[in-house]
């Protein structure tokens, strides 16, 4: 069962104090699969991604990444995190370092690369996201779209086997959203990387994802093939949520 599953989550419960945010989540993601997670705010989608690499401690349940049990106290979580890349809604670049240094720092300190190797790799990923001319700028000197592309570059430089994206475009002005989605589409199509993406961008989800998970109030309400869930959802809550999203974007389709 674990053989082609990159990610396996079993009955995951996460609490913030007394508030139970995830109430028994079970799902799996195969190697190379691209899964989109949809859900209203407060549904627990961010918490889910964070708990996969123990940025948030699960209360109950088990998580496996690449066959190793993340939730086992004996497991070295630092080693697992080196194979997982994460991109956050608010970019979270290190403001006191240049873009180049943001990328080379983890390469030097975590992957133990030499300065030259790290810089070489950094320039590669900067090229991938189209930010070579901003390498020596500081994060706060960049636009939101540029910062997020830099954050993606930083995560990709580590050659992750699993990429987690927590609403990568939600904090961006609409005109900047597309440049980030372009980069993500390229990454999704060119590599065998496994991706879990939390997003509201339904068109992007359809372009890139194989499967969709719809989470509401801490449970998985519906799960399935991307076209099925987005166009012909089974559960009325899913239907309602998608209609709301489409209506807000002025894209309400008659078929729903």
């Amino acid at each position, binding site marked *: 069962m674990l053989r082609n599953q990159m990610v396996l989550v079993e009955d995951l419960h996460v609490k913030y104090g007394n508030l139970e945010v995830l109430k028994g989540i079970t799902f799996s993601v195969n190697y190379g699969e691209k899964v989109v997670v949809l859900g209203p705010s407060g549904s627990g989608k961010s918490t889910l991604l*964070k708990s996969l*690499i123990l*940025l948030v401690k699960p209360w109950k349940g088990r998580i496996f990444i690449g066959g190793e049990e993340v939730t086992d106290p004996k497991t070295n979580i*630092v*080693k697992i*995190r*080196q*194979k*997982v*890349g*994460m991109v*956050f809604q*608010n970019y*979270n*670049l*290190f*403001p*006191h370092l240049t873009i180049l240094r943001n990328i080379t*720092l*983890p390469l030097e*300190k*975590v*992957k133990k690369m030499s300065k030259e190797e790290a810089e070489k790799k950094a320039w590669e990923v900067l090229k991938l996201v189209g930010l070579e001319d901003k390498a020596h*700028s*500081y*994060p*706060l*000197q960049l636009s939101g779209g540029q910062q997020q592309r830099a*954050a993606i570059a*930083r*995560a990709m430089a*580590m050659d992750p086997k699993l990429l*987690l994206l927590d609403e990568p475009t939600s904090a961006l002005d609409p005109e900047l959203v597309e440049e980030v989605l372009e980069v993500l589409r390229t990454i999704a199509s060119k590599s065998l990387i496994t991706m879990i993406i939390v997003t509201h961008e339904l068109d992007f989800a359809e372009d890139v994802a194989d499967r969709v998970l719809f989470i509401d109030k801490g449970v998985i309400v519906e799960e399935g093939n991307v076209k099925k869930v987005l166009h012909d959802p089974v559960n009325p809550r899913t239907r309602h949520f998608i209609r709301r999203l489409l209506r807000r974007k002025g894209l309400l389709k008659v078929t729903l």
Partner: protein
Amino acid sequence: MIIDSLKFILSIVPFIAQGLTVTLQISLTGFVLGMVLGVFFGLGRISSNIVYHTISSIYVEVIRGTPLFVQILIIYFGLPSLGINLDPITAGILALGINSGAYQAEILRAGIQSIPIEQLNSALSLGMTKTQAMIYVILPQAIRVVIPALVNELVILVKDSALVSVIGVAELTRRGEYVVAWSWRPFKVYSAVAALYFIVCFTLSKASKYLEEKLSIPGYMTRKGM
């Protein structure tokens, strides 16, 4: 009359300035000691380890809750009954350092806690250990935040160092007292002493501005940017 006063002041400055050297020595050494203690106990105050946290809290609260003057007296006059005999200068540096450490611990703690937790999360997500995240991501940002507060603390320390005169250290204030003893001109002498303290403290303030500018992170508020 003014010229006579100035002549007098200039004549005593070499003597009291020797005390200034002592003041600077004990202040700076005390501050550095305070930094070491400040980092250790500051990190302890935010540690999840109960023992580390409790010891750090006790240190900070006890030292902040008692007068520096009394702390100096305890270290110099009190420790001998426990078998520890220190010369005045060492005792003075120790007292100043232990005292400053408590305040620096809190300053550092505030600085660290002002950094959004997402900075730590993104560092960890890249596979860094918590220690690496602290050293390369959190502390560099926290230091920049607390430079003004730390320089504040140093300036206070320089002025507080006058208190060690009570245990016989011939620093700036004590030397001023000597001169008053034979010259009977307290106003002129103590004004000169104050002026020397001022020169030191003002220079530290200016150095702080320079340091802040050198270390400033592009994109953050500066006077120019407003």
